[in-house]
C-alpha cells in the first residue's frame, strides 16, 4: 500500500496518471457516437492502419515524438478510411471484408517497416515496439502534455457539436433535411476517431486501443437510454479503466498498460451487463419473475372468481 502512495506522489507518475485518465475519458465519449453509428470496428481498423504511418514518420524524421506520430498515423488512418469506402463502393465486397483487407494489409506493411527499422541504421529505435501494447510508464512529460491537449480538445469539440453529432448518429436523413453539412460532420467524426485512436496508441497499444472506444460505450448503453447520460457514463467508465490500467501496470513490473486497461474496461462491462437497470441480466430475470408471479396471481383470482360463479349458479 505504501508503495502505491509513494508512486502516486511521484510527479512524473501523476502526469502519466492524468494523461491516461483523460485518454480513457475522451475515447469513451467518442466511442459512444461510433457505437451508435454502427462503426465500432472502424476504431480497430484505424488503429492497425496507424502502424505504418507511425513507422514512416519515424523513418523520415528519426525522432520519437508523439506529435509527429499523430500526423503520420492520422494520414494513414485517413487513407485507410478512404480505402475501405472505395472498395465497398466499387466492388461486390462488403464492408467487413474491406475492413479486414485494409486492416491486415496495413498492419502487415507496418510490421515490415518495423523490422526494416530494427535491422536498419536508425539510431534510437528502442521502444518503438512498445507501441504495439503500450507502455504508459515510458511516456515522457512532453508526450503527456501533447496527449492531454489532444484529449481536452476532443472533449471540447464533442461538447460543442453535441447536438449535431446526436442527430447524425440517430437520423442522418433528418439532419440533411435540416440543412446540416452531414458529409462534413461524418468526416469530422471519423477524424476525431482517428485522433482518439492515435492518442491512445502510446498508452494502450495498437492492437487493443479499439477496446477503449467500444467497451465503455457498450457498457454505458446498459445503464441508460439517454445519449447525454450515456456519453457521460461512457467517459467515466473509460477514465476509470484508464486510471486502473496505468496504476496496476506501473506497480507490477513488465506488465504492459494496454491489456490491463482493457481488462478493467471489460470488468466494468461485465458488471453492466449483469446489473444494468432494465437491460441487465439480473434485472431481466427479476422482471420475468415478477411478471410470472403477477400472471399466476391473476390466474388464481380468476379461478376463484369462476369457482364462486359456479357456486352461485
Amino acid at each position, binding site marked *: 500500500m505504501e508503495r502505491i502512495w509513494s508512486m502516486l506522489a511521484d510527479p512524473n507518475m501523476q502526469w502519466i496518471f492524468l494523461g491516461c485518465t483523460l485518454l480513457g475519458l475522451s475515447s469513451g465519449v467518442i466511442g459512444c457516437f461510433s457505437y451508435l453509428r454502427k462503426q465500432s470496428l472502424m*476504431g480497430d481498423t484505424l488503429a492497425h492502419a496507424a502502424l505504418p504511418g507511425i513507422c514512416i514518420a519515424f523513418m523520415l524524421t528519426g525522432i520519437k515524438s508523439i506529435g509527429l506520430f499523430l500526423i503520420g498515423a492520422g494520414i494513414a488512418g485517413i487513407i485507410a478510411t478512404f480505402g475501405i469506402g472505395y472498395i465497398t463502393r466499387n466492388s*461486390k465486397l462488403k464492408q467487413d471484408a474491406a475492413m479486414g483487407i485494409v486492416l491486415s494489409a496495413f498492419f*502487415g506493411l507496418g*510490421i515490415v517497416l518495423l523490422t526494416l527499422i530494427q535491422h536498419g541504421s536508425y539510431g534510437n529505435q528502442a521502444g518503438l515496439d512498445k507501441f504495439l501494447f503500450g507502455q504508459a510508464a515510458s511516456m515522457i512529460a512532453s508526450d503527456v502534455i501533447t496527449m492531454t491537449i489532444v484529449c481536452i480538445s476532443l472533449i471540447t469539440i464533442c461538447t460543442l457539436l453535441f447536438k449535431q453529432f446526436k442527430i447524425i448518429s440517430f437520423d442522418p436523413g433528418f439532419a440533411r433535411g435540416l440543412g446540416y453539412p452531414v458529409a462534413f460532420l461524418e468526416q469530422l467524426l471519423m477524424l476525431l476517431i482517428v485522433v482518439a485512436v492515435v492518442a491512445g496508441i502510446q498508452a494502450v497499444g495498437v492492437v487493443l486501443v479499439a*477496446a477503449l472506444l*467500444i467497451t465503455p460505450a457498450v457498457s454505458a448503453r446498459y445503464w441508460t437510454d439517454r445519449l447525454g447520460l450515456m456519453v457521460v457514463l461512457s467517459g467515466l467508465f473509460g477514465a476509470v479503466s484508464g486510471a486502473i490500467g496505468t496504476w496496476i501496470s506501473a506497480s507490477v513490473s513488465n506488465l504492459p498498460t494496454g491489456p490491463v486497461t482493457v481488462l478493467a474496461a471489460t470488468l466494468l462491462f461485465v458488471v453492466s451487463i449483469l446489473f444494468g437497470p432494465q437491460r441487465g441480466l439480473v434485472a431481466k430475470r427479476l422482471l420475468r419473475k415478477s411478471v410470472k408471479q403477477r400472471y399466476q396471481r391473476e390466474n388464481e383470482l380468476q379461478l376463484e372468481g369462476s369457482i364462486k360463479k359456479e357456486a352461485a349458479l
Partner: protein
Amino acid sequence: MSDFWILLTGALVASCCGVLGVFLVLRKMAMIGDAISHSVMPGIVIAFLLSGSRDSLLMMFAALLCGLLTTFLIQMFQQSGIQSDASIGVVFTALFAIGVVLVSLYARQVHLDQDAILYGEIAYVHWNIWELGGVNMGPKAVWLLGITLLIISTVIGLFYKQFKLCAFDPALAAAIGIPVALFHYLLMGLVSMATVSSFESVGAILVVGLLIIPASTAYLLTDRLGLMIALSVAVGVASTFLGYGTAVLLDASIAGCMVCAAGFLFVLAFLFSPSQGIIIKKLRIRKLA
C-alpha cells in the same frame, strides 16, 4: 533446404487459410475471423504454460475451445441486444488482453516469446525438427499444418453441399433441415484450428490477412464457389512465394511481406479483374460510348 521448408510451410498455411477464408468472406464474417485469430491467444498461452511445449495437441484443443468460446460469446451478446460489430470488438479485445497479460506475467519463467506469437518466426521453422526413432522426419510445423489441412479439406469435402448452402442462403438451409448453427460452429472451430497451427509461422495477427485477402481476391475473379476456393488457395500460395522473395531481398519480416504481397495481388485483381476490375469496367464503358 531451409528455403524449401519455409516455402512449404507458407504454402500450407496459405492453403488452410484460403479454403476457410472463402466461407468467411461469403458469409460476411470476415471480422469474426479477425476476432478468432486474436482470441485464440489465451488458449495458446495457457496450453503452453500447462504443457511447456509449442506443438502439443493440448494447444490445438485449448485454442479450439477459445475459438468456440469467442463465437459463442459474440452470439450471446448479439442476442442480448448489442450490435454485432461492437460485440465482436468487446469479446476479442478482452480475450486477447488476457493472453497478453498471461504472457507478460509468465514470460520469464517459460520460453514463450510475445513477438513469436504475434508475428511468427517462419524463418526458424526448419530448426524445430520432428525425429521418429532417430530418423529425421522434417519440421514439426509442416506435419502439424499438413494434418490441419487434411482435417479441413476432409470436413469441407464431406459437407461441401451443406457449407455451400449455409454460405449463400442460411434461411433455405434451415428450412430444408440442415443444422445451420452446427455448421457455423464447425466452421469457426476449423478457423481456430487453422489459426493455432499457423500462429507459429505467420503470427496470430497476420493469419487474418491470409484468411481474408486471398479469399476476397478470388471473390473478385469468379462467381463459382469451387473455382473460388481453388483460386483463393492459388493466390495465397503465390503471395507466400512473392512475400518470401521480397523478405529475403529487403531483410524484413517474412510474415509481414507475405501479407503485403497478398494485398498487392488484391489490388491487381481489384483493378484488372476481367469481370469486376475498375479499369476493365472503365474501358468497357469507353468502348460502348
